[in-house]
Each structure stands twice: as structure tokens, then as C-alpha cells.
């Protein structure tokens, strides 16, 4: 029995205006939610309404609009605190997205913590966002980034990880919760706990997990966690960094500007407390109204049911795709999110992407900003379908038919 009845799915689909889009005379099959979500109408409307009634710069204004806008903004901080189970609201920092969140940690905590010859451990499947910032900062400090090797099934080698922790001067572990390239759900608690036991700090890249599962940063025990609103049915240009308050407090500022200061003068400037110390300049203050609506949507449907439905779609897709000869699915981890990545014998992923697009099917092709992962599995790129709560089995059937058809053309 399916998680949702056909009527429920139709109702959910009806809430996403873009799903009535037609591409090349075919209805759009959007199988690219891991790159960026589509948004329900209520998210679009919330931001439009905010701009029609409440738009004003936040934090310093005494007038009504500014007060109202600030309340929405700071109210979202409370809500993200609850979503993540953070122990205080000041542990939530507003950023542009996962990438900026990780850069913030690398440029402040990372630079503070890393000395010559120190090591940052990052998974072999990391998105570039959780690798390159560490490389840049490590290079500057004379430190280095080493990989936690991946196994053939798309999981990380936990034994090798513990050996690395024990044999190298590791200061920080940067690890994804869910792989955007393969879909692997890593047992990230184990990795965090192993680091914690050794006094090593941890950052979890939650870009692909927070939108798809319940998560509690205190239970997880990580020091930092990052995710993006645009992958969670929410607005673009908004993301969140969770950081343990004790660490945030000891971190120097990064970007300077309005709002993050206490007193400014040419003879010396002092800084505000976290989270404001890390929020310089006018934020994307229209976004919180949209993020609230996105969280409402998720709560209305229910995170558990969303996850269950995505899993159902994954299982269906994997079963159907496995029937195709010359198709190889990358990643067979025991736990996977709604992401399936595959390669076709003799067909370049770019050609496949172009063909599927002609059939109205939107998949992502290429290296998925995870070149080391591609290298690990000996491919230059893959074809990736990723699912959201609004996808259907018949869209997957179209994908399967499309793949079979294009194989004929290219072989």
C-alpha cells in the first residue's frame, strides 16, 4: 500500500504550479529536486504578500514595517532552532546556503583551529562545498585535507576513518549526511561520535538530509550543521548554519558590516554576540516569510510521510531501472535517500540528459559537484534522478521508457 492515495498525490501536485509546465509538448517530469526543490504556491504567495504588505529592512528600524519584518525574521530563527533541536536560538545563523555556511565555519573556526600539519578529514563523496573551503583554508594554514575513503557500495569506510582519526593530527571532520551524488544516507552519528570521543570537532553537511528527515543536532552531537532553504521547498538565497554556542562565542567575525558590530570607530571596533556577529549586512529578509510557508507545507504533509513516499519512489525507480540492460546504478548502500544515480554503457551522460530533456524529463547529468566521488567510481559523470513528495511512478516509467529509447539511438 502506498503512502498516499492517488487523490492525495494529485492534491499535492496541484499545489506546485510549475508541475503544469509543458516542455517540448510533454508535461514536465521534474526529477531534479536534489539540485533544487520546486515550491508550492503558498511559498510563492507568502513572499509576494510579504512584499506587498511588510517589506522593510530588519533589525534597526523603529517603524512598524521594520518591526513586523524583524519579527518574521527572528521568528524563523526560533522555528529553525526547534526544527533542529538546538539548545538556543542564538545557535542558528542565517546565511545564503550550505556553501556559505561551510565557508563561514572554515574561515573562522577552521582558521582558528588549524595549525601547520593539522588535518581536516572529509568524506570521499563530499560535495565540493564541503571540500574546497577546507582545502583553501587548510592550504593557508599549512594544514591538509585527507579523505575518508568510500567503499564500493557508496558508504564510507568506518574502520579506515577510525584509523585516520587515531593516526593523524585531525582537528576537524567535515562529513555529509546524505550524498547528493549517490543518495547514500551515512550513519553520521557514528562518525560524529567517533570524532567526539577523540575531541575532534565535526561539521555535518545536511543539505540533502534536513529536507528529507527528522534530525536532532543534540542527539547527533555535531558541532556544526549546514543546510539550504532552496532544497526544502523554500526560497533561494537562504540557508542556515547551526553552531554550538560555546564555539560560536569563541569564533572571530568573518564578514564585517552593519548589524554584526557593537561599537565602530577608526580607533577600534568591537563585535556583537553570536549569531549577529556572523550576519553582516542586510539579510535576504523577504525569504523568511517563504521559509515559514515551506515549513508549514512540510508539517502539513508530515516529514515522516514525505520520507516514506520518497523511499517508495526510490525503490520503484531502482527496481525498474535495474531491468534495463547496460544500465548500472551507482551506490547500493543499505540506506538511501530519494536519489538514484546511474550510467549507461556506451552513452555519454550529457547525450542522455539532452535526450531526456526533449522528452520533458528533467534529470541532472554530470559530476554533481562531487568530482572525487566520480573518480572513485571511475566515471566522468552520471545521470541522476532525484525525487520529491510530488513525483509519481508514472514519471519514473517515462524515465525508464526514455532511457530505453535513447539507448537504441546511441548504440
Amino acid at each position, binding site marked *: 500500500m502506498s503512502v498516499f492515495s492517488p487523490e492525495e498525490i494529485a492534491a499535492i501536485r496541484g499545489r506546485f504550479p510549475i508541475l503544469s509546465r509543458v516542455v517540448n509538448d510533454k508535461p514536465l517530469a521534474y526529477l531534479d529536486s536534489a539540485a533544487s526543490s520546486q515550491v508550492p504556491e503558498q511559498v510563492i504567495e507568502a513572499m509576494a504578500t510579504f512584499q506587498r504588505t511588510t517589506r522593510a529592512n530588519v533589525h*534597526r528600524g523603529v517603524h512598524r514595517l521594520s*518591526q513586523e519584518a*524583524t519579527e518574521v*525574521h*527572528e521568528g524563523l530563527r526560533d522555528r529553525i532552532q526547534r526544527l533542529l533541536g538546538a539548545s538556543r536560538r542564538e545557535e542558528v545563523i542565517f546565511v545564503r546556503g550550505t556553501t556559505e555556511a561551510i565557508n563561514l565555519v572554515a574561515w573562522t573556526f577552521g582558521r582558528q583551529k588549524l595549525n601547520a600539519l593539522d588535518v581536516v578529514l572529509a568524506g570521499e563523496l563530499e560535495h565540493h562545498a564541503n571540500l574546497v573551503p577546507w582545502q583553501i583554508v587548510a592550504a593557508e594554514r599549512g594544514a591538509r585535507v585527507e579523505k575518508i575513503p568510500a567503499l564500493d557500495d557508496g558508504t564510507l569506510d568506518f574502520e579506515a576513518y577510525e584509523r585516520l582519526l587515531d593516526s593523524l593530527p585531525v582537528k576537524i571532520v567535515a562529513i555529509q549526511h546524505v550524498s547528493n551524488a549517490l543518495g547514500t544516507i551515512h550513519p553520521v552519528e557514528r562518525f560524529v561520535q567517533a570524532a567526539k570521543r577523540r575531541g575532534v570537532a565535526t561539521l555535518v553537511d545536511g543539505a540533502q538530509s534536513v529536507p528529507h528527515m527528522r534530525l536532532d543536532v543534540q542527539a547527533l552531537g555535531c558541532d556544526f550543521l549546514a543546510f539550504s532553504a532552496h532544497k526544502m521547498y523554500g526560497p533561494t538565497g537562504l540557508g542556515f548554519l547551526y553552531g554550538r554556542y560555546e564555539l560560536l562565542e569563541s569564533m572571530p567575525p568573518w564578514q564585517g558590516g552593519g548589524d554584526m558590530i*557593537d561599537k565602530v570607530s577608526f580607533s577600534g571596533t568591537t563585535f556583537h554576540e553570536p549569531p549577529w556577529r556572523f550576519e553582516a549586512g542586510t539579510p535576504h529578509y523577504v525569504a523568511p516569510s517563504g521559509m515559514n510557508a515551506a515549513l508549514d507545507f512540510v508539517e502539513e504533509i508530515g516529514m515522516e510521510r514525505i520520507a516514506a513516499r520518497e523511499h517508495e519512489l526510490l525503490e520503484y525507480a531502482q527496481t525498474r531501472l535495474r531491468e534495463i540492460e547496460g544500465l548500472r546504478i551507482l551506490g547500493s548502500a543499505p540506506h538511501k535517500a530519494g536519489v538514484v544515480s546511474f550510467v549507461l554503457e556506451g552513452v555519454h551522460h550529457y547525450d542522455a540528459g539532452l535526450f531526456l530533456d526533449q522528452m520533458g524529463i528533467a534529470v541532472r547529468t554530470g559530476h554533481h559537484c562531487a568530482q572525487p566521488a566520480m573518480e572513485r567510481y571511475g566515471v566522468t559523470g552520471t545521470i541522476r534522478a532525484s525525487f520529491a513528495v510530488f513525483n509519481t511512478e508514472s514519471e519514473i516509467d517515462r524515465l525508464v521508457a526514455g532511457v530505453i529509447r535513447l539507448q537504441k539511438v546511441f548504440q
Partner: protein
Amino acid sequence: MITPDTIAERETEIVEEFAMFDEWLDKYEHIIELGKGLAVLAPELHADEWKVKGCQSQVWLHPVREGDALVFQADSDAAITKGLVALMVRVLSGQPARAIAQAPLAFLDRIGLHEHLSPTRSNGLASMVKQMKLYAGAIAAQEASHG
């Protein structure tokens, strides 16, 4: 004026007092008046040490312990903030630390001024109340562990 004894009684008194005002202007004028009536804070207590952070208006708060009670002296450079500070002092000063720490302070809401206590305001008032409660909480905890 004989000050009523409990925080709740003092709050009720204020709510009744403000019931007279229909107009925001009258209400604000009254608040300003209350500020003017606030006991003068000695110049040396205007030091940074007693300053409560607020971006727009400044607040100074000086708590003095008297037995298990806390007496507050305070000031602000802005008139309306000063009036609100005066209200807070009137309600909380001289009360037992435990009562201060636990006071819900709903009266601001009932007189339609709740917004001024919002942490999103940059007037320093919310921070002042937070500090009053922090002091009181610390003392109450001390009392408890001794008693």
C-alpha cells in the same frame, strides 16, 4: 502613594491606571511623565559597567541586594524608554528575588505596550528585564542552596 505589596498587585494598579487612556498620545505622555518621576541615577552609575546594550536608546541598570530582595535603580537616555524603565522599576524593585525571577510581567501586554519588550526592539528594554531576572535568579538560587 502607598505601593502595593506583590508584583501582581503593582501590575494591576498599573493596568487600572492605563485604562484611562484611549489615545496612544495620552498613553505615551503618561509614560514620559512616569520617566520624569524616576529617581535620579547618580552620575557614577552611568558608567559602562551598568549599561545595558541597546542599539537605539541606552539603558543603565543598578541592582542592589537588600536581604532576599532586590532594589533597582535605572535610567535611559530616551524619554519613552525611561518611562518604561520606570514602570519596570515600580513593579519589580524591592520585591523578593524569587518573585522577580518568576514574574511573567503580563501587564505590558495588557496595557498594549508589549511590543516594546520584544527582543527585536533595539531600545534595551528587553535586555534590561533579562538582566533584572538574571540577577534575581542568581540570588534566588543562592538563597535556596543556603536555606
